[in-house]
């Protein structure tokens, strides 16, 4: 029991240290990110067009809303360390999350356990380092060849998402078949309706809507399962009582 308490305390202090350093790193990164327009304006000896910024407020607010929804919905999937890194380095749905799921699948970690937190953090940290280095190295050919290299490679870039989510979809569907099928059917109808109405919602909005629909259907499945278990337990208890009465007689 004492050993268990010590393990829990260690686990808790490990997670607390993740929060502490995550907040500090996020604050530093935010300050640096906000400095980009300032340094550019000072270097170019110019000022932004404030009226255009005011006109873009509705756009900015819509992305603030998407950001808030994302931060809530990714939290149970990315773990503590992963959440702090991923919300600074970005490309979550197309890179960091699939990478984390892949690492979890390979190492066969159990959901919501400390091992999974560790593996997810390792996967997202490694992925962030690799991507940051590749983007930095990519500046060299871009600086030398300019847009010529983009012309050659750009036609293939829209197919990264189907290339990732075909394979990953097979893994996730085989693991969560019951939880995936109902939201998938609903989202097919939603997608069909939006495309028929010529109002494509875009991948990030569809992903968020998909998560919301899936949580609702997941909770319904969970409640049904709990209800069935309760009925089965009650029937079992009644059966035991009958047996006791029979024995008494």
């Amino acid at each position: 029991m004492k050993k268990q308490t010590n393990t829990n305390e260690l686990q808790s202090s490990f997670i607390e240290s993740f929060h502490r350093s995550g907040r500090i790193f996020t604050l530093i990164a935010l300050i640096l990110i906000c400095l980009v327009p300032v340094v550019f304006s000072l270097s170019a000896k110019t000022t932004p067009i404030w009226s255009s910024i005011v006109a873009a407020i509705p756009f900015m607010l819509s992305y603030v809303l998407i950001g808030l929804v994302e931060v809530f919905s990714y939290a149970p999937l990315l773990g503590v360390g992963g959440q702090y890194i991923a919300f600074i380095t970005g490309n979550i749905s197309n890179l960091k999350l699939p990478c984390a799921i892949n690492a979890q699948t390979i190492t066969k970690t159990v959901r919501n356990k400390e091992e999974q937190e560790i593996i997810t953090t390792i996967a997202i940290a490694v992925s962030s380092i690799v991507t940051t280095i590749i983007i930095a190295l990519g500046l060299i050919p871009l600086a030398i060849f300019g847009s010529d290299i983009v012309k050659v490679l750009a036609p293939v870039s829209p197919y990264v998402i189907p290339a990732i989510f075909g394979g990953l979809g097979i893994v996730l569907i085989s693991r969560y078949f019951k939880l995936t099928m109902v939201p998938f059917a609903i989202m097919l109808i939603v997608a069909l309706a939006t495309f028929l109405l010529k109002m494509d919602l875009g991948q990030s909005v569809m992903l968020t809507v998909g998560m919301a629909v899936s949580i609702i259907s997941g909770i319904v499945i969970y409640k049904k399962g709990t209800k069935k278990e309760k009925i089965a337990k009650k029937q079992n208890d009644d059966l035991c009582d009958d047996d006791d009465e029979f024995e008494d007689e």
Partner: protein
Amino acid sequence: MNFDYIGVYILGAVIVVTIIAMASFYLVKALKRAKEIGMSSTTIKNAIKSSAVFSIVPSIPIVIGVGIMMSYLGLAIPWIRLTVIGALQYEILAMDQVEITKVVPTAQLIATATVIMTFSILAGPIFNIVAFKKLQHKLVDLEKNNKRLLDTITGALLGGIVAGLASHIIIGAFFTGNTTPSDGITVTANGYITLITLAISMVTMAVCGILIQKLKWRKLENYALPLTILVAMASAYGLTFVF
């Protein structure tokens, strides 16, 4: 006109160093904790290797994104923007709030676009500083009181990602058909190539699964998804010459 100022490059380098320091810090902490709780070094090595290999192919379109944006913003700003929170589609929408893609870019337009691009993506990190700890404690409480419900929620979130993205990809591809529409800035997916790429990716992963489970090719387990992505992307590249 050249908009790549040395000051912006220096700031970009500082941001890159900060990100690598942050990721390395978490990596070291996680490795230490893994050792403390007795996780096997093979498991950890597999996680590191597969994550590194996995990240290579999806990073290349991000570099292409920098190349697409450099026509409007120079090289330094797209490099910084795509190294941090944003993603190409969002960045293009944000920078085009000042219609920079329709006119000859000026320093003032770029400064304005950069302010809009920066402020739109601050909500997530600010939430993490202010309230993520509380949210995570709530999740821990839920795990203690009702682990099955938390497992259902996390499973449903993963299922929701597949449902949302797959439905958009499939229906979108049927509506696009055999055309490769362009908004003048980026190339949008051809419907046929999208569907075939999706199918190739699914089949490749299924074949990998069979090889791993039936023929016991355990080594393939660590590289099944990166290999799947590579095969699907190579096929997509080939298909761009056909359609």
